[in-house]
């Protein structure tokens, strides 16, 4: 053994390798069965952190009635703008409503808007993208141009225009988000479809004379869903932020329904910002944490389903 072997620098990676080798040679390792993607996801610490934070906030919103006795819409003019106390964990707002319960119940609506819009626009985008990507032709060209026109429009202006036309309501806001949101997934799925339709198993299905619909929706579609799931998580985050921004400006969900953005609406007032931190800071933190956690989950999903990354 040369001197260089003895003084070889053992890095952290080296030590991990030594551990694995020792276990392998003792015959104690088996290739884990089950989904490799799941394992990779669970090994990603940020993704798991994101999953935990997401679950906490989600469950808290769903279980709101169990966690707070206060009605989020009940006005109590004798307890205006009170700072946090044992009665009101996050204080009260300008009309005496309990901030904590508004936070929890507001979460329900915000998550509904975010997740619901993301899922619905994904459904539309996948169906259209699948069929158009496989068939091609002039119909596909038309739909592409339409999607490009929608995407080229500045989003905020599009939303504001539509809101002013159809009016503010929860359903309207979701419909507007879906209208603007299907394009991204449509293009993603279409691109995948165009490369997958040249795969040999697709040609084999064609030699059997199977119908286009069957080939597209039953056989190829499952293979496109990986990136679509990542896209759904990231869209959810984006829609929540968008809703928060619009509601903050008073242009989103009507103020009578509590959402995170609506709660933030009061922060337009400088005096509130300076004096009543409990009215805006907790909501801001929750929105940030939730969006951040969803992004971590999305990144984790992408890394886990990416076949080229080493595990």
């Amino acid at each position: 053994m040369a001197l260089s072997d003895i003084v070889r620098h053992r890095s952290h990676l080296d030590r991990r390798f030594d551990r694995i080798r020792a276990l392998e040679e003792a015959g104690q390792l088996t290739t884990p069965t089950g989904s490799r993607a799941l394992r990779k996801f669970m090994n990603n610490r940020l993704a798991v952190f994101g999953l935990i934070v997401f679950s906490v906030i989600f469950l808290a919103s769903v279980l709101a009635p169990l966690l707070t006795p206060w009605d989020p819409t009940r006005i109590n003019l004798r307890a205006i703008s009170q700072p946090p106390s044992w009665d009101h964990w996050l204080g009260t707002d300008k009309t005496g409503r309990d901030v904590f319960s508004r936070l929890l119940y507001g979460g329900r609506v915000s998550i509904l808007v975010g997740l619901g819009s993301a899922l619905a626009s994904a459904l539309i985008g996948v169906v259209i993208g699948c069929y158009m990507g496989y068939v091609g032709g002039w119909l596909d060209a038309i739909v592409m141009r339409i999607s490009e026109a929608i995407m080229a429009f500045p989003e905020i202006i599009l939303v504001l225009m539509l809101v002013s036309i159809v009016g503010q309501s929860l359903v309207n806001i979701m419909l507007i988000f879906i209208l603007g949101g299907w394009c991204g997934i449509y293009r993603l799925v279409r691109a995948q479809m165009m490369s997958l339709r040249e795969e040999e198993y697709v040609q084999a299905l064609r030699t059997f004379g199977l119908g286009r619909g069957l080939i597209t929706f039953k056989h190829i579609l499952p293979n496109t869903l990986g990136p679509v799931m990542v896209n759904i998580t990231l869209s959810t985050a984006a829609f929540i932020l968008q809703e928060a921004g619009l509601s903050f400006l008073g242009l989103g969900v009507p103020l009578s329904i509590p959402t995170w953005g609506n709660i933030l609406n009061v922060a337009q007032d400088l005096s509130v910002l300076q004096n009543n931190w409990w009215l805006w800071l907790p909501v801001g933190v929750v929105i940030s944490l939730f969006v951040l956690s969803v992004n971590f989950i999305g990144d984790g999903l992408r890394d886990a389903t990416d076949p080229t990354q080493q595990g």
Partner: protein
Amino acid sequence: MPPADTDIILSLRGVKAYFPVKAGVFQRTVGQVKAVDGIDIDIHRGEVLGLVGESGCGKTTLGKTILQLVRASAGQIIYHTGTESADLTTLSDHDFDPYRRRLQIVFQDPHSSLNPAFTIFGSLEDALKKYGVPTRAARRKVVADLLEAVNMRPEYMDRYPHEFSGGQRQRIGIARALSVGPELIVCDEAVSALDVSIRAQVLELLMQLRRERNLTYIFITHDLSVTEYICDRIAVMYLGRIVELCRSEDLYARPLHPYTQALLSAIPVADLDKRSNRVVLEGDVPSPVNPPPGCPFHPRCRFRQPVCTTDTPPLRRFAIDGRDDHMAACHLIDAPQAAAPAQTAS
């Protein structure tokens, strides 16, 4: 249409497959890729016909055109079932169905030839449903039988493609091709992507199935060592045309076309005693976008004469050893031509 000859299963007349090259803002057609440029050949029932050539010669496109995966731009593809014949290029989707099940294909790449999202049974089920296997139980029986026919265990039908090796996946691809009861199978480089020692397994399987089920193969490959071993007749393709067509033994014993000679001499032989005089061709394998005038091979041919640059040589029969079934497309071949006109290449 020629009278139905029960010996011939498929006749190709003047088959061409051109693809447009589009350019410019309005995507106008500025040229043609002449992938298949006029093929005439008769394929006999039960034979193994080798289709050999290098990249760009059109052999894969021809295989797909026969199966109607690619639309022929011109020509006729006539299928003879024994009781009737039909030109496949003129059939509608619906009329093509009874012929579709008789023509199948085995692909090259074992990794993309099976749908990763489905079990083996799931991949095969829809074809069986379409071709009249009514119940799920019956379909499972059919798939079990198919897997046994390719020397695999029936319980594998509930596994996913990624659990199998390349050689096993290729055998599953063969089982899939057999599932609808074909008569003619196009093997598109079916063993080229496999490890060398696995190739022999798959070739043995293909030959065994052919004997058992009286199949006809069109074996597309660039590997002339394999075709010598398994093919009855060989067609050598260059730039979308057949340049030589003859029995397997004749090709290796007495190649007539200069391209075939160069191709054979270029192959590295795993036998130290058999190193040949190599003919090294100059230049590159051409692209079918702008084929040269006259003989497609003349730019690389060491025997080139002025006539080769202007006149495209037709496929002619030559009388050798008392037979007239050796055909080649070259102006300069020094061999007696056969009396019969080379109208049909059977």
